[in-house]
């Protein structure tokens, strides 16, 4: 336990943290999550893509169609996290770089912990929004449908629309980034001063 907090990362561990920081920053430029609605009259699909800071895709058309079943209009203003996620991820990446520089285990733990907590929160929020949009339907809507929660990854059928959902490249980059931190903390630490002097070896495990 003491080692866990006071230990230091070895070279591989530091590289992994740097890589993790790079992946986190890269994730900001790719969609984290997507939804694609396909119907006979939309064979090309109506995509919605969620980025760290915006919602892309053909939201206006999806909203237009959603009003038939009384679904609330999806608009960026309703997602407060879109305003903060870029900063959060940037901060995390900054901490990861700092960890790589200082090699402190405790800093690495803090970073990975924040990352994991953030990731978990993100997944919960995604489920929350999917649930909210799918179940809080306007009772006055033209078409009455049983409330539903689309899966985070998978397909869902609603009237003539098949909805495909899943994580995007950005989402995977983010996930791998956090996993790399955990991996680094788990496997690539130096246990004492002795092994530290022989740190030129690629791995201490």
């Amino acid at each position, binding site marked *: 336990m003491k080692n866990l907090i006071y230990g230091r990362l070895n070279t591989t561990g530091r590289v992994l943290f740097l890589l993790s920081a790079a992946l986190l920053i890269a994730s900001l430029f790719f969609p984290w999550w997507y939804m694609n609605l396909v119907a006979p009259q939309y064979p090309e699909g109506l995509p919605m893509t969620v980025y760290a800071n915006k919602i892309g895709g*053909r939201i*206006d*058309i999806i909203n*237009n*169609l959603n009003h*038939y079943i009384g679904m609330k209009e999806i608009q960026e203003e309703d997602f407060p996290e879109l305003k903060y996620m870029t900063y959060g991820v940037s901060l995390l990446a900054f901490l990861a770089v700092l960890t790589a520089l200082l090699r402190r285990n405790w800093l690495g733990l803090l970073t990975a912990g924040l990352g994991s907590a953030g990731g978990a929160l993100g997944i919960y929020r995604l489920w929350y929004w999917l649930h909210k949009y799918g179940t809080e339907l306007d009772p006055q809507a*033209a078409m009455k449908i049983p409330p539903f929660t689309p899966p985070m990854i998978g397909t869902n059928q609603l009237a003539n629309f098949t909805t495909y959902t899943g994580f995007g490249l950005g989402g995977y980059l983010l996930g791998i980034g956090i996993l790399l931190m955990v991996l680094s903390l788990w496997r690539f630490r130096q246990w004492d001063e002795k092994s530290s002097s022989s740190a030129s070896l690629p791995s201490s495990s």
Partner: protein
Amino acid sequence: MEKRSFSKIVLALAGLLVGLVLAVFITGRVNPSASQEGASFNFSASNTGVADEVVEAALKTYVPPGKLDEYYLFASGGHSGNVFVYGVPSMRRIRTIPVFTKESSVGYGWTAETKEMLGNFTWGDVHHPALSETNGEYDGRWLFVNDNANSRVARIDLDSFTTKQILGPIPNIYGPHGAVFLTPNSEYFMMASRFAGPIPFGKYAPIEKFKDEYYCVLAAIAIDPENGNMSLAWEALLPPWSYDLSDAGKLVSDGWMFLTSYNTEEAYTLLEVNASQRERDYIVAMNWKMLEKAVQEGKYKEIGGAKVIDPRDVPGSTYLIPCAKSPHGVDVSPDGKYIIGNGKLSPTVTVFSFEKFMECIENKDFQGEERGFPIVNYDKVRVAEVEVGLGPLHTQFDDQGYAYTSLFVESAVAKWSLTDFKVVDKVQVHYCPGHLCAAEGDTVSPDGKYLVALNKLAKDKFLSVGPSHPESMQLVDLTSPKMKVLFDNPVDPEPHYAQMIKADKIKTFEVYPKDEQLEGAVYKKEDARVERNGNRVNVYMMSYRSRYYPDVVEVNEGDHVTWYLTNTDFDEDITHGFAICLYDINFEVQPGQTEKIEFVADKPGVYPFYCTNFCSALHQEMQGFLIVKPKDQQ
């Protein structure tokens, strides 16, 4: 042991069978024509009595669902005032573009913009569509058409297939039949009068003064290279003959314009007889670059608001080339070297050499002059008189050095060579072809491949619809040594001319872009509103599947109403209509588009409005009320 070898044999046979099926499938994929041959063979083996070659022809025009045609064909709709768009080779009509006539299916002629464009005319006589050109090639940007009845021209934008500008009536020109024919870089298109008359419009001159006080003109309409905007540049005065068709020179002959004429007899009654007396009329050759320069130098008079130049004041600009007899079409060959006059009342096309024409001018080799214009020496300038058949009207070209001439009287198309000037093939068409249209057939590089004969009569070819028979277009295959008619297509009155352009040259847009600055546009329901200013009422309405905001609009009897409607479905193919019952108002808004109508609410009462263009499952609910409060209750 025996059992095992038995199953081996069964497996081997099954494997062979699968292999065979795969092989047939793959052969079909790799070499589709082979499988087509096979299909036609199988088909004729049935008892339908359809000949092999008919089945083959059908397969050549069949475009399977989901596949697209190779060419767009833009055909004039004659006195319907429309342009019809077909896909080639399927010959399916894809679209009707209203140009000079109201068309309620798209609300053309009810919106403020189109109403103003149509002016006080309710019809037009569309004759010759012309695609814009760059370096003598179609560029797919605009289509121009003339109105032979009311001396107007129109521009259709090919990014949206809608009429965007109507210019005219062009002053001083009665019946611009010799239009629209573009110069190779779309600097101008030329219009020549069919009918002589006193100018400007409205001037009186007794018919007996025909020779002295009646004129024709050649009008040069300038085209803005950026936006296609048409404007009248200048006009040239011409003798009171009838100018039939025209064509611009290209490549070596660029800078010249050629016009056929009839009635050089200058008759003014019973033209059928009196205008058909001379053995030769003229092709009038005009150097438009010289005339343009002269106009810039100020050598013109203002007549009826036009800059009119007398070409006799610009020596060297205009010559007459004798051509037999009452020539109809004049067509310049793809290399620009030959000018081909189609004889109409003579069974020949006459081929003139541009090079020799220039030599005649240089050597002053003239055989006389008429009305002050030198007549070049016929024997020198002519290189061939090709006996094509009866009633040659128009000529188009392919990529192999052949010309195709329509024979009106003979109901046939003649194919002849531009190298030895001999007829090599003829195909019968039903009946009486006017214009022909070959794929990119009047550009500097025709495609060959297809030719469409635009026939004036289709007698007995289709199910009877009473005394007014449809006209017809026939698709002719040019890919084999013998021309073959592939398809008969009934069409609305009346195809005059058509142009065929490779489909991938046309780039359309599907949704109008959002533009917050656009007059009257509203993109949010919170912004939708009715504003009153005295007795003028502005309605800013938006629509999306399947609602209007606002859906109740109240005005006072006598109000002048300006009504904007924006379609906020920025979604391909989601068009909304808008009609006000009993108010004679109807139009449609395309995805993202804002349209405007204006009317005086002169009838009190309640008038439902509704979406006329089916838009969604709740289309029937897309409606509202215009309430016009009577004067005495205001």
